[in-house]
């Protein structure tokens, strides 16, 4: 099954989803398609005005273009998702990856889709890591 992961570029989540036999829907898939395109319109990410229009499918016109541009990348992944894993309080979502409104809208869109979703908190110690992996494992095994 195709599992949307949040944060969409997390190595931990991507690795665990693959380990337990599913396909992660990670951000690299969307970026790969853009940056390895022979046409280089706007390096480094190759986000063009078309993407901002695509973003309109996921967010209203009043939403800043930066958010719409990001959603143009996350959106197609959410559309494909058959299940989702959301990790809250991820330290790296506070900072440069953190366009807070995009993150909020992304989680909102996943919840609106009503696919099986697992919501977890970022682990901070070994006991929590064990619980974190066990919950992901159980969730992914139940999906099969």
């Amino acid at each position, binding site marked *: 099954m195709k599992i949307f992961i949040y944060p969409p570029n997390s190595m931990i989540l991507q690795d665990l989803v693959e380990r337990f036999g599913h396909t992660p829907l990670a951000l690299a898939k969307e970026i790969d398609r853009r*940056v390895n395109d022979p046409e280089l319109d706007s390096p480094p990410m190759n986000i063009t005005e078309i993407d901002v229009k695509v973003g309109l499918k996921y967010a209203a016109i009043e939403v800043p273009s930066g958010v719409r541009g990001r959603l143009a990348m996350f959106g197609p992944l959410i559309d494909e998702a058959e299940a989702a894993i959301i990790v809250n309080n991820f330290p790296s979502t506070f900072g440069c990856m953190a366009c807070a409104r995009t993150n909020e809208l992304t989680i909102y869109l996943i919840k609106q889709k009503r696919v099986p979703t697992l919501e977890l908190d970022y682990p901070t110690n070994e006991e929590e890591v064990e619980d974190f992996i066990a919950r992901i494992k159980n969730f992914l095994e139940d999906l099969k």
Partner: protein
Amino acid sequence: MKTRMFVIADTSSLTPQTVINYIVSLGKTLNIKDTCYGIMVEGDDDVVENVTLKIREKFDGDIFSKHRAYPIGDERRCRATRGGGARPGYYFLLEEYKLFPAISKVLKEGRFKTIDKKKKKPVDIDILKKAINEKVQK
């Protein structure tokens, strides 16, 4: 064409060279680069996926992997051409890197046990009323 990055957990005795030797022994046509955190592998989609599975089988919880969008040595990402500094995405990796030893240990030991977390209950309304009344009366 697909690029994958492999990151070795901090606590592991595995070295990037060991992983490279293993990949070379598989005899596939791949472009490999070793880095401070592990290695990067580039090649045809199915070959890269196949090699990833074999690396996971061989090194189990010692190594973590993800799909990387940019090709190896891409000028838009490579520090050599960008005048140094951390590459974008490094801080995210750094943050996750701290958790790899614990994840690696759990995966290797096969300990998959969930903990029942007690939900924090809100303060009882009677206690709250009593506290307010005490304050107001004073």
